[in-house]
């Protein structure tokens, strides 16, 4: 099993090397192959992770918690790689008959895109696998800088602005997270000696003896610092810009995977803090940030004009749900949170990929200029609808199950007010999301703001842009209706790891 982990970390690196040299088609094929292989490797790791913690070459470690986040990342790596084939083929077709200069520009764009995509996936695979809080910080910082370059890739005015805001705000946030790492080191050094590595196992096991003040400080700094990357209010401001301006495959990865990976970092600090301080303090902090994020996102969802920004705010909403779920602390809520991570990854990737098709079709991101999508897109229209319904936690999709678990965990643990607020705000967000979706898909064209615009032709832009969405839908259905028993074991094991210190 340790070999598989090393393979998982090395594979995307090799693909990066290939993509740096290879022509567009080879790069696309190799990336798809790597994405699918990575997902298979992650799935193979699951049964081993249920039984025990896997370690490899001193710096790699996987327990149930890291495997769940790894699964989410690798799933998205695979589907996004497939989607990117269709996304890029469309652009390639546009330049094929064009001048050599334009073709050269496209070749450079494609090379950068695939290089960045694989580097981004690599850093997000590394983050949950490293066995060290300092290396975790480094991995998260690498996800930031790589994805900032990807956000800037389209080289439009909006992309440049979004990339600069993103890299500056997220890096400053990570500067705060670096202080959290340092104070956690200080707390640990009281017990583990002046010089030690920040490996997770010793930190978690000896956390009960840590002095309280530095741990409190480290936890709050970690929530604010890594929370910047998660998109928690009030440090979420980079998020809608970056998600809206990035190329669609990157938006899907950002929203489904990057936010979750940063949340993973918070969970590690949570584990240690709960061991040192007891559950009350960390849970209160997470509850405050979670409720505020959820409230802000639900309100913004009601008044959006841009389809990708809409989905970005929906990400803020779901990250708020995760934070609230952890703050409930009951095992059923925690396993709900972990399931939510997987289901949200699949659903949000589906929604972004569907939105990407809509944006291609209508040639705009503005919601006011989209209408009657369901007639124009025989596959992507209905699929986008299911993705939005899944995001709103409708049965029979995975998010229904996970949010149900979280809410029932809240009521079981006598957090009635918070659980009720959660239900109300999620309903508000549901209203915003479905209202907009109905407008895009079912509103007749005559009600559009510019009826005179040329009518797009009926049909899908590319088969490659539909297949991954169908895969994502199947995953959502499986998670909602009949999650495999190994996965259920993994989730409950992850939940018990998280709750361990609270007892």
């Amino acid at each position, binding site marked *: 099993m340790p070999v598989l982990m090393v393979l998982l970390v090395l594979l995307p690196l090799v693909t990066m090397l290939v993509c740096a040299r290879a022509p567009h088609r080879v790069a696309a094929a190799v990336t798809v192959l790597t994405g699918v292989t990575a997902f298979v490797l992650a799935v193979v790791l699951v049964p081993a992770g249920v039984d025990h913690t896997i370690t490899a070459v001193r710096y790699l470690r996987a327990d149930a918690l890291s495997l769940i986040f790894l699964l989410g990342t690798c799933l998205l790596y695979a589907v996004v790689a497939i989607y990117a084939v269709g996304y890029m083929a469309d652009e390639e077709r546009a330049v094929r008959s064009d001048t050599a200069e334009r073709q050269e520009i496209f070749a450079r764009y494609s090379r950068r895109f695939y290089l960045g995509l694989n580097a981004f996936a690599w850093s997000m695979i590394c983050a949950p696998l490293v066995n060290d809080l300092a290396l975790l910080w480094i991995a998260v910082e690498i996800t930031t800088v790589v994805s900032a370059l990807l956000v800037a890739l389209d080289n439009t005015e909006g992309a440049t602005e979004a990339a600069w805001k993103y890299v500056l705000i997220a890096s400053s946030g990570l500067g705060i997270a670096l202080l959290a790492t*340092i104070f956690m080191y*200080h707390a640990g050094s009281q017990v583990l*000696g002046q010089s030690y590595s920040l490996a997770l196992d010793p930190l978690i096991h000896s956390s009960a003896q840590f002095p309280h003040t530095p741990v409190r400080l480290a936890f709050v700094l970690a929530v604010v610092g890594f929370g910047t990357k998660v998109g928690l209010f009030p440090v979420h401001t980079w998020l809608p810009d970056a998600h809206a301006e990035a190329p669609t495959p990157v938006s899907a990865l950002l929203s489904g995977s990057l936010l979750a990976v940063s949340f993973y970092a918070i969970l590690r600090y949570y584990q240690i803090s709960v061991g040192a301080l007891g559950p009350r303090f960390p849970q209160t902090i997470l509850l405050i940030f979670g409720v505020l994020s959820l409230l802000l996102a639900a309100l913004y969802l009601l008044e959006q004009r841009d389809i990708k920004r809409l989905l970005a705010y929906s990400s803020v909403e779901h990250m708020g749900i995760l934070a609230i779920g952890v703050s409930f602390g009951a095992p059923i809520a925690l396993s709900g949170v972990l399931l939510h991570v997987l289901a949200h990854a699949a659903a949000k990737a589906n929604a972004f990929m569907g939105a990407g098709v809509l944006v291609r079709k209508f040639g705009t991101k503005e919601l006011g200029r989209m209408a009657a999508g369901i007639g124009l897109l025989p596959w992507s229209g209905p699929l986008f609808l299911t993705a939005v319904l899944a995001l709103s936690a409708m049965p029979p999709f995975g998010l229904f199950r996970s949010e149900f678990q979280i809410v029932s965990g809240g009521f079981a643990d006598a957090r009635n007010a918070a659980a009720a607020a959660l239900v109300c705000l999620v309903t508000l967000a549901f209203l915003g999301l479905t209202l907009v979706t109905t407008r895009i898909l079912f509103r007749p064209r005559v009600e559009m703001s510019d009826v005179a615009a040329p009518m797009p032709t009926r049909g899908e832009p590319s088969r490659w842009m539909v297949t991954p969405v169908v895969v994502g839908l199947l995953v959502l259905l499986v998670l909602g209706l009949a999650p495999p028993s190994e996965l259920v074991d993994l989730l409950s094991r992850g939940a018990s790891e998280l709750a361990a210190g609270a007892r």
Partner: protein
Amino acid sequence: MFLAYNPSVPSVFSGTASTIALIVLLLEFGMLRQALLRGQVRLYAGQSLAVSALAAVVAFGHNVPELYALAVLSLLLKVIAVPLLVVGLLREAPDEIAGSGAVSVANAVLISIAVAAFGFFAVGVLGISSDVLPTVALSLAMAVVLVAFILMILRRDVVSQAIGFFSLENGASLASLVVAAGMPLILEVAFLFDLLVAVVVFGLLARTHHRRAQSLSTETLDRLRG
């Protein structure tokens, strides 16, 4: 009534350390008013030099050979490589970044003093102490971090904002010398190389911005809202 004032005389070591930490903070204040791109980078190099020197002082005072290695590495990367990279990537840009402040320099300094004082005393109250360096160095590190934020907020040009982030990292390095001096060298080296990657990306994005907007100012970056 007998009022005894009991002055505690600092040792040469802690006096030197506190002075160097103070220099780091003063250089941070200098960045609030610097009017030239290269001057801003030079201030950062000077600040990094001070942090490297402090690492060497700690290495000498406590006899930790690992910290000498850290001091040399941090000197090579932060004092030489990073400034060269930033200036190299922005060589097409004009040297002038004056007048990018959202408020006047005097007001910026006043705000920074207030914020720095808050950071200084807030950390002092926590009672986190270390055997390596005087606690005042930790308070100063916090002040550096907070003033770096003020710098990023108040200066509206890409160079000052980027340098603000790099100097925030300097503040964190200072804090880590106080409370986490024993951190394994391999991790410190990883941090430094990570910073280098970040510097390249900041530089690339700043250059992209300059080519697109024909200026280093970020005042035009306000189209994405809502």
